[in-house]
């Protein structure tokens, strides 16, 4: 199970949203990459459900 792997290996975090959460992890030297997230562009909103089905 993937869950078990999570509980038994080092947590490696991708942070999408509040920068502070990533900074907190950085401050204790936990591996983290912060994503410079922005709301989806108009191009994506229009095609949102199609893009979702196509896997992005």
């Amino acid at each position: 199970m993937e869950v078990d792997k999570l509980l038994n290996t080092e947590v490696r975090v991708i942070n999408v949203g509040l920068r502070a959460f990533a900074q907190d992890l950085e401050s204790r030297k936990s591996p983290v990459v912060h994503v410079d997230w922005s709301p989806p562009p108009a191009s994506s909103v229009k095609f949102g459900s199609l893009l979702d089905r196509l896997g992005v």
Partner: protein
Amino acid sequence: MTILVNEVRRGFYMDSVALMRISRSVGAMPGVKGAALMIGSVTNKALMRDAGLLGATGEDAGPNDLVLAVRAESEEAATTALSSAAGLLDKPPSVGQGASEWLPKTLDTAVQQLPGANLVLISVPGEFATAEARRALRRGLNVLMFSDNVPLADEVALKQEAQQRGLLMMGPDCGTAIIGGTPLAFANEVPRGSIGLVGASGTGLQEVSTLIGRSGAGVSHAIGVGGRDLKEAVGGITTLMAIDALDRDPGTEQIVIISKPPAPSVAKRVLQRVGESRKPVTVCFLGVDDMALPANAVLVSDLRSAAERALGGGRLPWSDRPTVAALAATVGAGRQRIAGLFCGGTLCGEAQLMLRRAGLAVSSNAPVTGVATPKEAPGAHRLLDLGDDEYTVGRPHPMIDPSLRDDMVRAAFTDPEVGVVLVDVVIGYGAHDDPATDLVAVLPAAAERGAVVIASVCGTDQDRQGYARQVGILRDAGVVVAPSNAHAAELAAELAGALAAAGGSSR
């Protein structure tokens, strides 16, 4: 009238792109009709000639020389432009802005940058959170979704998808988790140990995990499930997966489950799963103190009891608890009411339970079972959850910025009915840098308060704010600091009872 001015620098070379940039900024100066800085090659001179920028001086330049040419409306404008061009030429190249680190913009590139990533922490606005979570799950990544305001149907769909993939979907509205010692979102540095926690409440997990940590024991994992996981519609999908995982986890010797009272059908399923475990389980459905449980499980009704049970059953001590009489003596005449001002929602709930248990009339904007709203019971003791939506629209949660509470704390002391101010101070990751100092700053001088301030601090000494340091700051300001939120509420209730008795009033 147009003035053409040329200047030649012999034996000067600069990259043509850099020269074009300077030409452009000089050309944009007031009164300038055209400008060019070019090396005096044959082709360049032809270009400048065609553009009406080459004079006799410039014609004389060779391929190792730089021509500065300006055509302007006046002598003055031309001279100013030329000297500005010279200034730009001699300026040392800038290091360039934006030399800061680069951040990936999508999950896919983030995964490339962090091989072996296994969890995505999502805190984008609720309307966008579902799409991000789905991307994460499809890439085989566990999710902690801090975002709230996610449609219930989305939550169900995400959790079902996660379940199919064997992934953990913590949240939406999951404020806290500790996975393998790594605190995520609003969480504390708690020593590792053998107690596994599953919680639908963020501050509930924080309170129990820090009580465990401060007592010298430790936590294997604290898995947040989100506030709605135990609702009928969601069916406890994440709670059940978390129990499964902790049951299999060799590092977890016992399990504590923390939640508001679940939907009966969900409670049944959760308890059935609990019964299949060989590990001892403590079940805390806040406020529920009567429920049939499997043999390996014990029911507790508040957070402190959950921690006590997990720690072996003894009561958490409060050695320097002040006497109620001593505290009552400092309260102004006629002041009998408790004003509870909480940052942590579940801490507010637990305090309501304590007051209710003491037989007091309680009201709250986030009432637990059996508690009225302030509107329904305007004269009752009032415990407010300041993290509730009504207070946080357009501003940060009071755990991040407790100043939201400042005005209400000040107002409590000017209210002639308030004899006890009950507060929580939450520290750890995500929380304010020094909430105790922030709180103390708005308290009136101890002699002028007329009301007792009772607080508890949720955190550990390993948190950057430091548990002991926060407690010290509060005590120095004359605040009574209890060893837990429940202790604080209990003392407040006793004191209120004593004040009521002394005042001859019956609430």
